[in-house]
């Protein structure tokens, strides 16, 4: 864990000079050729997905034997998209994912930054011990606690609209509450807060501001970069989640998009529909990424631990 700090640069990743004299002529052409070939390897499956989502299943399968696989040729239409919406409650899955992800990101950032504020600026008994325990949780992969956590949430009480019930399975909160707590979020905020000038806090204290006011009025307004980093990491982790929702949502009503995928690889796979569904759940994320590309990449660079 301690080694992560070596790369904790919030600044955008800028290529530094490797060779001092810029390449030119044939060398330059070769370099670009290599860059393009590698880029094709990464782009190819994604373009294939998008193009296939526009083709009828038979044509899609026939096209895989040639370059037509990645070209919008033949019988192009949006039929697969309409069909996908008929096959499965796609809109519901998308809503569930957006709702669960959105609520978790907001709560995780709020409570995480609040705790980090306390760890970074306040002195209280047991602080350093608790913080080192928070850091220790980072080496526990979720996969190693998934099964006991399943048993735990299955026996937790809940007071809701239906009154008092036992067991959290098949709800929204079972997908949200365990994921609010996140050692990585706390760690990222603490790193950022420790670099802020302490005079800011002292000045506010002299003005008689309470701690929560300082958090809300002084610190949060200048925490844009770390908020973006933590939000992006949490968003990716939540939206792309598979194992946990697979275990806790047997009811269709609460399933997120990744679990909803199962509707499309049953016995008779309708390939066109599946490609349409994959595009529906992937394109918004890709668009979001391409728009905020620098922020995405620097947030990965600022961590290193956990996907």
């Amino acid at each position, binding site marked *: 864990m301690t*080694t992560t700090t*070596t*790369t904790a*640069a919030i600044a955008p*990743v800028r*290529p*530094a000079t*490797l*060779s*001092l004299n810029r*390449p030119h002529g044939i060398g330059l052409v070769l*370099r*670009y050729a*290599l*860059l393009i070939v590698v*880029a094709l390897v990464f782009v190819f*499956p*994604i373009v*294939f997905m998008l193009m296939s989502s526009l083709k009828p299943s038979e044509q899609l399968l026939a096209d*895989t*034997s040639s370059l037509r*696989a990645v070209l919008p040729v033949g019988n192009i239409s949006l039929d697969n998209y309409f069909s996908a919406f008929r096959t499965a409650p796609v809109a519901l899955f998308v809503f569930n994912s957006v709702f669960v992800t959105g609520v978790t990101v907001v709560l995780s950032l709020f409570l995480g930054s*609040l*705790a980090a504020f*306390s760890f970074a600026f*306040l002195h*209280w008994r047991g*602080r350093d011990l608790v913080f080192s325990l928070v850091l220790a949780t980072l*080496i*526990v*992969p*979720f*996969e190693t*606690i*998934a*099964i*006991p*956590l*399943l*048993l*735990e949430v299955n026996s937790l009480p809940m007071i809701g609209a239906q009154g008092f019930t036992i067991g959290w399975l098949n709800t929204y909160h079972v997908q949200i*509450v365990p994921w609010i*707590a996140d*050692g990585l979020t706390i760690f990222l905020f603490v790193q950022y807060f420790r670099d802020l000038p302490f005079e800011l806090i002292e000045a506010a204290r002299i003005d008689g501001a309470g701690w929560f006011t300082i958090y809300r009025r002084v610190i949060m307004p200048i925490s844009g970069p770390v908020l973006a980093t933590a939000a992006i990491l949490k968003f990716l982790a939540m939206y*792309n989640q*598979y*194992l946990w929702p697979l*275990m806790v949502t047997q009811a269709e009503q609460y399933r997120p998009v990744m679990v909803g*995928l199962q509707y499309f*690889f049953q016995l008779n796979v309708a390939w066109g529909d599946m490609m349409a569904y994959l595009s529906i759940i992937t394109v918004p*994320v*890709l668009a979001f*990424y*391409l728009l905020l*590309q620098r922020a*995405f*990449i620097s947030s990965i*660079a600022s961590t290193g*631990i956990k*996907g």
Partner: protein
Amino acid sequence: MAGGSRSQALTRQNAAGWLMALPMVGLLFLFLVVPFFLGFVLSFTNQRLVSPNPTTFVGTANFEQLLGMGVLVLSPEKEDSGAAKVGTDGQPSYPSLRSFTRSQDKYPQYYGMKELFAFGWGESRVEVLARDLVFVKAILNTCAFVIVVAPVQAGLALLLALLINQKLRGINIFRAIYFMPVVISIVVVALLWRFIYDGKDGLLNSLLCFISFGAFKPIDWLGLPQTALWSILAMSVWQGVGFHMVIWLAGLQTIPVSLYEAATIDGANSWQKFRFVTWPGLRNTAVLILIVITMQAFSLFPQVDVMTKGGPLDSTQSIVFQAVQRGYVQQDIATGSAISVILFVIVLAISLTQRWLTRERTA
């Protein structure tokens, strides 16, 4: 701070500090620390998700069942004359395995075990047995996956980082493209790649046929025990390599430009610059990346679940896939927890080893 109200301020800080940290720390305790220790406790019981019978303590029985292995050396059967008995195929014949693994009173240590693999040793035959064949295979597969994926993915990521770390027009576009698969869910990627690996109409087979002018015979990449795990590995590298490229890039940028300038003045070529300037400067990054890839690789699950379900012939069984099979599908929480504990011990051992190795080098 004013000296007189110092202790009072400290008390107030104590209260405020606890209050602000409590919600997050409380949740972390409830949903991470509790299940973590619960897992240890459950792994020594016979707990099921729903069961009419009360939970009882069973000691290390779950671990013995999962990890129990034995080695059996079989001597060839002898004729009454003392010559080795030879079967119809001309090979020496050995006593049947069943005579050892099915008799609880004569050979309790081998009872219920199955053959993992066997090999000849002189005229004897060495049988390696496992009590839980599938789980032992899952451990072996996962370890093989990790041992191959760590150097391959770290190496490719470094090559990409060096490629991207050039001063060229439009280099940011390439960086964005190489990183793109990282933001896509591994579940989506795995489904897409089922197309690429398909035995009949797969894109990979088409491509290889095209390159070799038809000489290449199509392979069912995910359907053969020899290729399935490595196909999953190649796809995982494709999806994750951009992530580690970015971490290498961050490491590359901590190396001062002046060092490269000095090397140029000394007449170093590109390889020498890499060997004596770049590589020593990347040592910490290298360790970090290996730890990250190893931890991620041990969690191998969604790819297996979507692409092969552990098959063919258990060649893609993984530790986490087995934990989910037992703990969730079969609702055997105790065995699932025991597998989780085993996984945690392996991950912890590896991250401690890697940390220890770096400490020695930097000291």
